[in-house]
């Protein structure tokens, strides 16, 4: 490579296209991060459990962590596109350099992407650990969930065999669901609480959550299970402890009468 080129290389950050890229990067990164987070988190809606709140913050963190990378790629692409364009049926002259490599750029790129990857992994593991612990909560209410084409049934084994097609939960009490299916695979999804677990015939699977908002939320089947899969939906009512107790009592009385 020529003299000129080497001296250029020593002060590579001074060239016009590098400056342009840097400015674009600084502009694009916050825009990508902001739009990406706002659009996604707004679509998700208000969380009804801590699990869901941490899903939302995870997605926000990941989006912000990804924004500088996406911003850099976008800045480089835009700079290239704003640069030396040629139209027509014949190729332009060949570029006036023959750069085939840049060990420094490549190494930086690989190291940064490795670090980001580790960051994503560790943040994910921390939340996963927390979710896993809640399965072992001895004070939790146990509820058996049974999927069958195309309804959900909820059994409350600790409350005189109460069984219901609508799920009632007391607010701020940990719950562990024991999930199975009578026929094909279904997937038990409590949307606003951010939990989902497949219902497999022949096995019992578990997931746990502590609802922290009073209200009515959605349960939807998230695994194609045949003809009326789209209609395999239901509601979960999160109520105060007092309301919950009285609901259990009336249900138990109904069961007794039946």
């Amino acid at each position, binding site marked *: 490579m020529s003299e000129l080129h080497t001296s250029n290389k020593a002060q590579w950050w001074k060239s016009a296209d590098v400056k342009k890229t840097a400015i674009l990067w600084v502009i694009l990164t916050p825009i990508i991060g902001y739009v990406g987070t706002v659009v996604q988190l707004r679509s998700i809606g208000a969380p009804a459990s801590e699990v869901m709140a941490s899903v939302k913050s995870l997605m926000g963190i990941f989006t912000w962590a*990804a924004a500088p990378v996406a911003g850099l790629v976008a800045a480089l692409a835009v700079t290239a596109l704003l640069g*030396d364009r040629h139209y027509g049926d014949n190729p332009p002259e060949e570029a006036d350099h023959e750069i*085939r490599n840049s060990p420094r750029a490549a190494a930086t790129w690989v190291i940064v*992407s490795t670090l980001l990857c580790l960051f994503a992994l560790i943040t994910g593991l921390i939340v996963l650990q927390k979710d896993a612990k809640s399965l072992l909560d001895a004070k939790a209410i146990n509820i058996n969930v049974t999927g069958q084409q195309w309804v959900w049934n909820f059994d409350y084994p600790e409350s005189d065999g109460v069984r219901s097609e609508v799920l009632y939960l007391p607010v701020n009490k940990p719950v562990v669901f024991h999930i199975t299916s009578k026929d094909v695979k279904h997937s038990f999804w409590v949307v606003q609480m951010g939990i989902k677990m497949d219902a497999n015939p022949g096995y019992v699977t578990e997931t746990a959550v502590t609802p922290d908002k009073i209200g009515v939320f959605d349960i939807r089947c998230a695994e194609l299970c045949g003809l009326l899969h*789209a209609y395999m939906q239901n509601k979960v009512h999160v109520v105060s402890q007092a309301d919950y107790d009285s609901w259990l009592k009336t249900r138990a009385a109904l069961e007794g009468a039946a």
Partner: protein
Amino acid sequence: MTTMMNRPASAPGDASGRKPLIERLNIVTALVVGTVSAIVIWQLALHFLPQDAETASFFNREDKISLMSLIAWFVGFMTGIGALIGPFRWAFGKDLNHDENMFLAGKDQGIKRYFRYTTDHKVVGIQYLVITIIILFVGGTLAMLIRTNLGHPQGGWIHPQAYNAIVGWHGIIMIVATIIMITGPFGNFIMPIMIGARDMAFPRLNALSFWLIVAAIPPVFISFFTGGITTGWSAYNPLASQAGLGMNGYIAFICIFAISTMVAGANITTTVVKMRAKGMTWNRTPIFIYGVVASVALALPAFPVFFLSQIMSAMDRAFATSFYNSAAGGSGWLYENLFWIMGHPEVYVILIPSVAALMEMAPVFTRRPLFSFNLAIMGIAGISGLSVLVWAHHMYISGWAPLLNAPFMLTTELISIPTGMLFLVLIGTLWRGRLWMTMPLMSIFALLWNFMIGGITGIYLSDVPADAFLHGSMYVTAHFHYTLMGAGLTGALASLVYWFPKMTGRMFDKTLSWVSFWLVQIGFNVAFIGMFLVGLAGQPRRVESYASIFNKGNLITTMGAYTIMAGMLVLLHGVISSWRNGVKAPMNPWQAKTLEWTVANPVPLENFETLPVITSDPYGYGKAQS
């Protein structure tokens, strides 16, 4: 037989005597023999197969009959196309002579050779191109039915059974189309010329791999009329064992297609390893070749597993075995594992050749060398290696093995490192290039944009807690369309425009390529951004109706889908009109430096008169400043 040995087998339409068998077989005989065999076996089975005992717990006589008919179709079709002539003649010690081999290569047969068991790799490439276009057309039509039905929350005008069948049919044939869309047409037509070879290593296997795909298609079409593939493309058991006879069509389709992929994989890998031109060391081998080999080589471990999973499914259906039946000691999780051990590598089977094709085009349209060739190879190798170790990220919430979630999260997120390398190579090549503004060049930008979104959403999905929310929702559907279509198809369409002049001898109409590019890309982003949003709001995938809160997002997606359709129709028009009366292409319209541009249009039967000798890699663009 002796007479056949003595006369030139290629003499066309010898009116006097009967033509030898090898000349009489073509797609018509194949369809006839296949259909007749299927009907004969079907009737025989109907008459002679004993009824299921009334006390039996499984009724599977129908399954046996339909599977037997499908096998008969397959054997009949392959016999009728002439796939067995070579092996039989060889086994009986009368291998094909030179003239017969030249006939098989399609010498002097004009258009007819496209409907025969022709071994010339250029014919096979064109055949693959046409069949890919046909499958994409059918799959696209099905997609439009799905999107039209979802334009309204109550869905409505398609019956749920038919809707599920359409979703499954769309899914599986599009997966097949995207698997073959680059390695089929361009891997067969262009790749051997690019490495300076006269044909593939095993020309007859090449014909075999193509005609197996043709044989595989009717079963999946017929399945639509025998209950349909109502399980989605993943065909999970026990849902699949519960589904109607249409599932047998799926099983036959997958098994035949898997054989085709394995045959093509062995053939392409051998060709590249053994038949590169003199002097084409690994460092001088074009990056597209690496992409094709990585793709078919990944299919080599993946597709036998797919094959096996479907054989087991067929046995559960027809013989009441219990591989997947938990009531009798089996497990649906077994199926899920087998399926995704194929399923994840398979997505990179689709992606890698597409990115590699764009890497091949990048130096051509920026007039500068490929940036970091070695990193490109590292990236491809890294992705291929890791991609067989991540399958259970599709099963995080299946409950199969919660303790394995963390390790699979690790391997999955590691894939973003080699994926990042591919980004660097592309973006580094664009940097300080002289951009020649063509549709293939803009496709590189489109791929960067789409695959950025596809890749980042992939990271959310690989995070176990986030996946517990996102799995099974429209978000996943949007993610994989961003990767399969936004990245994969974008590269394939660019390849079509780029290699069209060599394959057809004519230039692809420039205006039409631009119009279709923008319609497809804009429509695509509208459609699948909308789909992300409804997924985040909680809409499950594969539903035929949905809560009215999802209406706006679905409407956006449907409008985007119609825009894509318009773009694809423009492209189809471009293919047909340019092929018929486009501008005649010069030998090297893009002034590129790979070998396929050094042969004349149309490419002569044996490609090269004298085989080339390679002295440098094909990326010597650009001049040093002086």
